[in-house]
């Protein structure tokens, strides 16, 4: 049983003139994998990522998440699944403004049933991404790289089954980008499942498997024999 099972997944937009953003996508992702979804803009990778992240619904095909048929779930059940099973990392960070780093990380827990010791758990994951010294800083007081690390901590705080990272290095300089990739690789080493959406070859090669897309279709799905390890000497202080 795979964590994510996708079969003939479709996503169309428009009522009369149908545009296919996604056609017949079929693949499985197992627990512990590090998958990069690659493709130029307009290739449908974001659409696929939104469906995998339970933010959007497919127009056709099957999608099983943790062996649950997603099309049978209502919006509230999807929200609960997102809350408990999925951690998001966005290109533009999407942190709450005028809010502390710690409060940003506890955010998913405020919508969760098991929000005991929320502060401690948030502190733990922040230390894990090397931000133990930034807990009470406001999000406008930290650098872009640090913001993305806060976002990763937020994705980790609920012990999600999968971390979905949408162009996580897109808004960062190469040094901070490398730091982020190194953290993601470490998390994967610890057993976290990671799905990465990117159009950069360097970033994609940090994963263990690359799914390439073009015009809404999967054109290749390969395991990498030699994963690129992201390096940066001053990554984690």
């Amino acid at each position, binding site marked *: 049983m795979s964590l994510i099972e996708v079969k003939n997944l479709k996503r169309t937009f428009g009522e009369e003139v149908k545009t296919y953003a996604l056609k017949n996508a079929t693949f499985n992702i197992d627990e512990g994998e590090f998958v990069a979804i690659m493709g130029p803009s307009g290739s449908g990778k974001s659409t696929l990522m*939104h469906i995998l992240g339970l*933010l959007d619904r497919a127009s056709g095909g099957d999608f099983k998440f943790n062996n649950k048929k997603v099309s049978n779930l209502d919006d509230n059940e999807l929200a*609960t699944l*997102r809350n408990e099973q999925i951690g998001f990392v966005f290109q533009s960070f*999407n942190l709450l403004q005028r809010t502390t780093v710690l*409060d940003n990380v506890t955010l998913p827990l405020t*919508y969760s049933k098991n929000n005991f010791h929320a502060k401690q758990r948030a502190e733990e994951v922040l230390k894990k991404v090397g931000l133990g010294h930034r807990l009470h800083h406001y999000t406008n007081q930290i650098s872009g790289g640090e913001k993305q690390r806060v976002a990763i901590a937020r994705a980790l705080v609920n012990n999600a089954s999968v971390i979905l990272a949408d162009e996580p290095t897109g808004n960062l300089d190469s040094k901070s980008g490398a730091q982020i990739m190194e953290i993601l690789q470490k998390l994967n080493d610890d057993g976290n499942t990671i799905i990465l959406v990117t159009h950069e070859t360097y970033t994609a090669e940090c994963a263990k498997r690359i799914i390439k897309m073009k015009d809404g279709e999967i054109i290749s799905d390969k395991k990498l024999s030699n994963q690129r390890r992201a390096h940066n000497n001053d990554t984690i202080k």
Partner: protein
Amino acid sequence: MIKAFMESFKIAVTSLLSNKIQSLLTMLGIIIGVASVILIISIGAGAQSLILSEIKSLGTNLIAILPGHSEEGSFSPTNSFGVTTLKYEDALALTDNRDIPNIEAVTAYSKGFGVVEWKSETYNTTLTGTTASHLDVMGGDLEEGHFFNSEEEKRFIRIAVLGSAVRKELFGYSDAIGQKIKINDYVFEVIGVMKERGNVILEDYDDQIFIPLRTAQRILGVNYVGLIRVKVTSEEDIYQVEENIKTILREQHDIKNRKGENDDFMVQNIAKALDMITEITNSLRYFLAIMAGLSLVVGGIGIMNIMLISVTERTREIGLRKAVGAKSLHVLGQFLMEAIFVTVIGGVTGIILGIILSILIATGAHLLGYDWDFIISLNSIFLALGVSAGVGLFFGFYPAVKASKLDPITALRYE
């Protein structure tokens, strides 16, 4: 459920605190609205109690008889205008009438405009022709000299008692008693000066000259009286005495209809007047409170407007919250809670502001010499709080629903 509520509350407070200026501006409309409701209700109650206590201070055992006809149960002083049916003889018929027990005193009034002169001083004032029993009915003390007695009243002699303001205007610090003054070109002798009394039932008793009724009627060229006042020995007898007065006056005026349909006079007592004034001032108060309440609605529209802007501004935030697991209900709860929170905080601030202003006004009125009560009713506070929370709920609902219906993807993509 309670936990979810507490969470929404916490989120609402946090996000309000992080937008202090915006929250304050949003509150301003509610603060002003609530403060003005509290203030107006308080001023209304204070003014009402001032008027009522002034009337009550006269005693509730007074009956007024005015000329003119009114429908049963109603009483309209304007119906008296220009009506000449009430005569001095009517007052005499009531005085010492064996058919009506329980009457303590009766007096009558003919009023007119008076130009008073003394040496080079001229002063315009109210000329009040009355009977010697005026003081028995209406009370009042003399500063100096004496009020005319019934002997003097009947002899048509030209004597005058001055109100304190008239005395001040004419004589300044000179002696007034025994001086000859001219009233409408007739020479009068000043025999008394009244003590300062202020307003009684909206009538300035200090700015008047009292002269014997008959003399006044001659000077003014009239043969009727504008008002007869009867003082009853005790309040309980007042309605019985009223009925007796009506019977006597109908005999006097040769009116056959006993039901009062043809009456050319109106009988009114202070208790009824109090009821009437209470009714009028109450409706005035409620009217004003409703007007002030309208400003709350305006404040509410302001809240809706700012919240709609806020929903647009925070689209990405809403998208993120949904992405990390917020259900529509959470988002709805958060925005509703924010709206209610803003209005309730605004409401409480408004209440405090309103109370402070009411106290200031009461203090100011005291300094000006009015016997003004500071009245804040718990009802008005609860009303203001309830209404402001209701305004928040009502006007916050649409923006909150709009926020909760946002699609997480579009919200996240929103720039």
